[in-house]
């Protein structure tokens, strides 16, 4: 089975005047379709850069980023935007909901520009917000907001769901519930989910764990029997 996502020799070098910073240096890993992947590493290891490159927000200086067989690294701005709007779902640490729009409208905001999308109401019901659809973000709790955020990402029916510290701003229980939602989504929908976190306690629940250090993959392991979220503690 060919890798669904594959990074080959990816480098990202920032030049700030004289200083050259290698945020990502020759990174290689691959992810299978439908896997729940956790990318873990300390601050400054290059997690976010990987996320940026994978999410089409930034371009790799060197190397290939193959997503479903297509090299994303070579995209121009317009194709990059198209990639973001059609292939990628984002879940942010701080939810990034538009305060001015209701939960439903936030989902609609994402799907109105997307061709192959799911029904906003259904997806909101699925993430457990059936009764909160017409509430504004400020009327929702953090967990609920993150659910809206996940619903917004899922509604686009993306190939890849990228989650940046999805539990970072949530308390323990809520965080767990969100992780469960993500894991369930992965299992039930066969969605490829990539969670980026500095919390290595989350690694047991992943199908695949990629550890990053100093811009390189320090280790990659595949969990044959991932632990359900309920079994994890941190």
């Amino acid at each position, binding site marked *: 089975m060919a890798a669904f996502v594959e990074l080959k020799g990816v480098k990202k070098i920032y030049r700030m005047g004289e200083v050259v910073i290698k945020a990502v240096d020759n990174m290689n890993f691959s992810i299978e379709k439908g896997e729940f992947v956790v990318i873990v590493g300390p601050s400054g290891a290059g997690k976010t850069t990987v996320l940026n490159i994978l999410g089409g927000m*930034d371009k790799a200086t060197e190397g290939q980023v193959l997503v479903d067989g297509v090299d994303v690294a070579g995209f121009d701005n317009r194709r990059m935007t198209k990639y973001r709007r059609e292939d990628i779902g984002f879940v942010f640490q701080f939810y*990034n909901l538009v305060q001015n729009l209701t939960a439903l*409208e936030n989902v609609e905001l994402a799907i109105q*520009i997307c061709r192959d999308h799911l029904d906003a109401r259904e997806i909101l019901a699925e993430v457990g917000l059936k009764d909160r659809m017409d509430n*504004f973000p400020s009327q929702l709790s953090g967990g609920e907001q993150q659910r809206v955020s996940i619903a917004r990402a899922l509604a686009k029916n993306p190939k890849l769901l990228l989650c*940046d510290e999805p539990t970072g701003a949530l308390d323990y229980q809520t965080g767990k519930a969100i992780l469960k939602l993500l894991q369930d989504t992965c299992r039930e929908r066969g969605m490829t989910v990539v969670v980026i976190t500095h919390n290595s306690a989350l690694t047991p629940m992943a199908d695949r764990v990629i550890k990053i250090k100093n811009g390189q993959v320090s280790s990659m392991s595949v969990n044959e029997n991932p632990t359900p979220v309920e079994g994890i503690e941190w």
Partner: protein
Amino acid sequence: MKKAQRKDFFVEIKRSLNRYLSILFIVALGVAFFSGIRAAEPDMRLSADAVADEANFMDIRVISTMGLTEGDLEAIGKIEGITAVEGEYSSDFLCVRGEKELVLHVASLSSELNQLTVKEGRLPEKSGECLIDEQLLQVTEFALGDEITLNSGTKDPVSDTLKRETYTVVGIGTSPYYLNLDRGSSQIGNGDVKGFVMVPKEDFALEVYTQIYAAADGLDGFVTAGKDYKEGAEALTEAIEAIAGERCEIRLAEIKKDAEEEIAEGEAELADARKEAETELADARAELLDGEEELSDGRKEIEDNEKKLADAKAEIADGEKALEDGRIKLADGERELSDGREELAANERKVTEARALLEEKRAEFEQAQTALAEARAQYEAGKAEADAGRQSLSEARTELSGKAEQLNEGFAALEAGRKDLESSRETLEVKEKELAALREMLLAAGIDPETNPDYTAGMKALEAGKKELAAAEELLAGKETELLAGQEEWNRADELLAEKERELAAAEATLAQTDALLTEKEAELEAGRSGLSQLAAGVAEGEKALEAGRRELAAGETRLEASRQELLDGERELAEGRQEIADGEEALAEAKETLADGEKELSDGWEAYEEAKAEADEKLADGEQELADARAELEDLEMPEWYVLDRDSVQSYVEFDSDADRIGAIGKVFPVVFFLVAALVSLTTMTRMVEEKRTEIGTMKALGYSTMSIASKYIFYALTATLAGSVLGFLVGEKALPWVIITTYKILYTNLNVIRIPYNWGYALGAAAISLMCTVGATLAACLKATMSQPSELMRPVAPLKGKKIFLERVRPLWRHLNFSWKSTLRNLLRYKKRLLMTVFGIGACMALLIVGFGLRDSIYVVSDKQYGELWRYDATATIEKDAGEAEKAELKEALLSDEAVSESLAAYTAVMDAEANGVTKEVNLVVPEDLERFPDFFVLRDRKTKKGYSLDDSGVIISEKLAKYLDVEEGDTFTLKESDVKGISVRVSHITENYVYNYVYASANLYRELYGKEPESNAEYLKLTEVHKDREQELVARLLKQDAVSGVTLVSDMNQSILDMLGSLDAVVWVLIISAGLLAFVVLYNLNNINITERRRELATIRLLGFYDMELAMYVYRENILLTGIGIVAGVFMGSILHRFVIRTVEVDLIMFGRTVHPVSYLYGAGLTALFAVLVNVTMFYKLRRIDMVESLKSVE
């Protein structure tokens, strides 16, 4: 501030340079406008003052009802504070240039005050030179060296005022007395003074000054319109007025004294005149009597001469008779002579004919002689020939007879031959028969004959005999043929000879005949010769007789010539005699005529004498009357009066003053609006900045910095930006704006050649102070509010503004129809209410400024459009001369009717009057049309708003709108209308009509009659032209001015043009407004957008990350801007129309009413430009939006 803070401060400025600069520029704009436009008013006054001061313009002028003397001049000069006094002579004159008659104000050149500015040439230096107004060049062509000839325009000669009529232009220049184009009015010509002419003082013949100018030292440096100046001028005025009474008394005494002297002189003159008249009359009488005597002498002489002439005539008659006899005789002689001459001529003809006959005959004779001789010779030759022929003929006959003998011999021989032959043949035949018988015998003997030698010999001899016979036969035949031929030839020759013989016989017969004829002819010829000689003798005789006749004739002619000469002499004598008589008669006739003339002259002389006598008596009586009048006048002489006037009475300065006031009024409104927006925007910007820096403030506070210490960074930020902006605005605005405005006004005030734009600290300081208050105050307030909170609270992210349902959502049907994007846009707008208000206000202000700008033009162009296009339907006005006679007026009517260019004309009575009501007096033009029915064709009277037409009737007058406003009267009210000094008459207002230029009162003729009790005598003709063609118009004007009755023609198109020209200067103001509105819109929108984007950076980054294309992202923001711009424009329409109305009322001139409404197109322009500015800002924003980093969305909330 600590070092770290200082560094932080500079880094802050560098990082938010956009914001810093936008505050700086907003403040700069605000201050520039506020101080610049406000400074324009004082700067205008300063500039006008500079013009006045530089030219040493008078401060005070004194005019007297009776002129001013040298004594007055000295007295005024002695007043304290007066530094210079100068008297001026002046008067108005007419000058004809090309087709134009110009009214010129001629004044004496001053030496010190009111210095002229020479633009070309030089000042006049000696008598006969002049300097002309530069403005005259606008009216017609003038060049240095031109001569201008003045005429007084009244009955008085120029010499009453000026020593000479013709002046040479040596200079062209301007006078500080006139700032603008207006040169005042005059009582002569068409009343419109076109310009001044300055001539040397000594060219004036006036005894007293027209006015005295004075300048005071203490007033220099004060602005003319200023309070200090006015107080100073008033003090001076009072000082001069104080001496006025005394001076006036002196002047009166002088005048009285002069008058008394004059009266005394007059009396003496009168006495002299009387004496002189009497003497002259006596002389005349004596002369007339002498004349009568002379006349009677003449008459006698004529009678004598007549008698003499009759005698001479009788003598002539006798002479004529004698002459007639002589003439008859002469005619007889001539007839005789001509008969003789005829006879002679006949004889001559006969002789000539005879001679010719003789010649002819002689020639004939000679010819015949010759012919005869020739014939004879021919005959002789012929005879000789015939003789020769006879001889040869006889010879031939002899020869022929010989030949005949020969032939006969031949024939005989032939016959003999033939007989021989016959005998030989018979022998032969016998021999043959013998042979044949031998043969038979032999045969019968059976011997072969052939073998028989006999037989063969016989045979052979036979054969030979036969052959011999044939040959002889042949020879004989030949001889026979020969003989026959010879026979024939002989026959032929015989025939020929016989012919010849016949011919010869004929010829001989002819010859014989000829000979007989010839002999006859020779006899005839002889007879001819004797006849010829007889003829010759006859001719000679005739010639002799002819010669004798000729001589006789010549003698007759000589005789006749003599008698003819005699006759001619007689005739000449007679003619001379007759001429003498004719001369005599002529002389006589002349003498008679002279006599008649003399008689007539004499009677005329008597008549003249009587007349002169009567006249002299009358004149003397008049003189006496005049003297009596003068004496009476002297008794009545009133005290002269002085008018002491300062610069406020100089019209162009007063006008400039009110224009400055108007700019001042604009300066009070515009900059305030502008400034308000600028202040509000910078305030929002600073507040927003402080709010953005919450976390930083919290951190600083947590670190233990004091409130002031924290706030100082923001305060410095605001302070430096505002101060820098103020200084920039002040430096640029206070120079540029007044300059633009004053330069614009220079179009009207052409003499305003100095522009003074000093920096005016007051306005700038005020503006800067208010700006500082706004920005720094706002910053301080925001900082205080921020630092009030606990640091922990500050460091926590600010609770984002809660989304909530907006009222629109409650309008379900509407909300449901809005698409998603608009829903979010509407919610966003209402979420940031402050921004919404600021943007709407900013855009509204921009729109309002544009509307005022365009509206100003609209309102002004309305004057030309409506007044000259819609309300006044006529094209020209012809003013009728005051003292024009009926005949002249009738001629004008006729000319108007027949003129091709004039399609219709309306006569009317017009007058300038004063209208008074509620304590206000306004000068008005009264128009009383002759024909009420056609009046609406020329003047449209209607309500401005409803366009409802009014018709003029006898119930009351119709007055113009602005007049109604000034007088504060409404329909149905009454006001007082007075004509000069006549007591006012109360009239009722029936309607108020739309009108933009001047004040008008329209009244019907009946109403006028009723009110004033007199006939409104037409003194103007309103004309409509068939072809409104510029060239044709001017032609018509020229044609009309030739009419005696016409004193002036005004073209509506000229008036329209002058309005358009004048108003064209306002375009610059409009441009200033448009540009400033654009700047305002740009700065405001840019700034607010900047805030908007910064505030929502995270939201926008998220949306971007969600996969919005650049354009979609931009639209997410633009939708709000579009909506705001739309709302702003709508708000601007209201703000603009209110502002426009206010501005129009403030800038309006007294005599002109500007349109009150803004043209719909101007709203469109305004909206279009505003939208354009908005689009520009949004385009700029696009790049900023594109630079939003998506990674931003991942960051934690600050």
